[in-house]
């Protein structure tokens, strides 16, 4: 077996098991840590797909920045153990509905997966992956100077950054204490 295939199975197993662990046990602190492990596994998969830039940004943004905030919240709330919910919030009708919906979702996913042509798997990942950061930059920020030329994703990028800025200002406004005048 190829080394990268073994790597794939190991990393995939780590990712899936850690994700199951996140929802499977009641200590929120462990959930946070397992989620980080799962992100680490994902980032390893990106490395195998010859996309180191995605792998590193996955670690910096998700594991490094967002999860630290999660950890802070869990730590400061000092929720050592989740309470076991004795009474089910949904009634028996709701439970039936949920069961039907989850079965439907399962069928849907199987159907979608069965439609994936096998040629997708035969592709060499390195042929399609963009490992060079420069190329990623060009794809994102390319501006067309001549008519008919393909634009990059500048507009989507700028729109997203303005959206994030608005959200940030909003968060500051909400978090700020009312000054008594």
């Amino acid at each position, binding site marked *: 077996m190829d080394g990268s295939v073994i790597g794939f199975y190991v990393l995939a197993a780590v990712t899936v098991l850690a994700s199951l662990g996140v929802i499977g046990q009641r200590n929120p602190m462990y959930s946070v840590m397992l989620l980080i492990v799962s992100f680490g596994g994902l980032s390893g998969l990106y490395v195998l797909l010859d996309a180191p830039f995605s792998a590193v940004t996955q670690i*910096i943004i998700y594991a490094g920045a967002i999860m*630290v905030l999660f*950890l802070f919240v869990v730590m400061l709330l000092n929720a050592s153990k989740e309470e076991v919910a004795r009474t089910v919030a949904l009634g028996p009708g709701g439970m039936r509905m949920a069961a039907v919906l989850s079965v439907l979702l399962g069928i849907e996913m199987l159907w979608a997966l069965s439609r994936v042509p096998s040629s997708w798997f035969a592709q060499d990942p390195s042929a399609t992956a963009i490992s060079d950061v420069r190329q990623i930059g060009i794809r994102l920020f390319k501006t067309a100077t001549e008519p008919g030329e393909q634009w990059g994703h500048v507009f989507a990028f700028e729109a997203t950054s303005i959206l994030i800025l608005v959200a940030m200002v909003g968060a500051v406004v909400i978090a700020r204490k009312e000054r008594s005048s």
Partner: protein
Amino acid sequence: MTFSPELAAHLGLIFVIFNMLVLSAAFMVWLERKVCAYIQDRVGPNRVGFEGALQPFADVIKLLLKEPLRPKAADAVLFTLAPIISTAAAFAAFSVVPFGTSTTLFGLLDEPGIPLHVTDVNVAVLVVFAIASMGVYGIVLAGWSSNSKYALLGALRSSAQMISYELSYGMALAAVILMASSLSLREIVLQQQGYWLGFIPKWYVFPQFLGFLIFMTAGVAETNRAPFDFPEAEQELVAGYHTEYSSMGFAMFFLAEYVNMVTVSAVATSMYLGGWLGPFLPDWLAWIWFLVKVFAILFFYVWMRWTLPRLRYDQLMEFGWKWLLPASVLNLIFTAALVLWMQ
């Protein structure tokens, strides 16, 4: 992958680098105590070995033989895991730092031999940054899992500090990346070859002097050292996040701290001081320049620690957010404009 002399040499190199990091941490402990002693007009350790040079090893043996204590109320799994995360993150960051050209081990290997680094990824700078951001977890978990108020407060301070200063750290590095137009540390070092006016080396420290200052300041905060050593402010927090640790757990936090210092210095050397580049020495001895530069920065760190008093916590936060971050953003914008204008 088949077994080849190159592979064996590479594995040997990894082994050497790992042990060099451990030894440099031991050396730093000794240097710190010696320099501190001289600054305070004392002698410092002078019993074990020449001028106390074996003192760190004696300390390690002592720590190994101590009983590892764990508070009853502590979270056993995370309490054990925290020092491991800290140490692993500290060591992992060094894997992308190049410290010399390639070697053929005196002709044992075919040309061009093996390059002197563990791995050269094309996003090396980002890898250093990513691993540095993982180091926070070791400290936060140590503080939380100890279930002690001093440890928790120390961990909270430490993570708030590391998150605040990581921004300026990254912004300062981004300016160098703009100038070098590469994310590979080896590439960035090679960009600094040559001289201006025949004698000023083309190191990025000259065009990026403000960036260098920002990087060094943020680096001190990142490694939790004086004058930014709030996580372990003895007078207020006993020993901060590692208050409850004894024996090897404590030693591992100590090791992580010193290895982090070495890594920050090595990154500063590669990004701003031309890495292994330098006059007089032949190519295969170029790594000596690297060691000299890293040592100079480390000495500066120690010197600073025993010279400057600790700031107040609100001063630290104010300095980070209101001065250092705006300065690094301005530096980045100015550099970007300059690079565009030069094109």
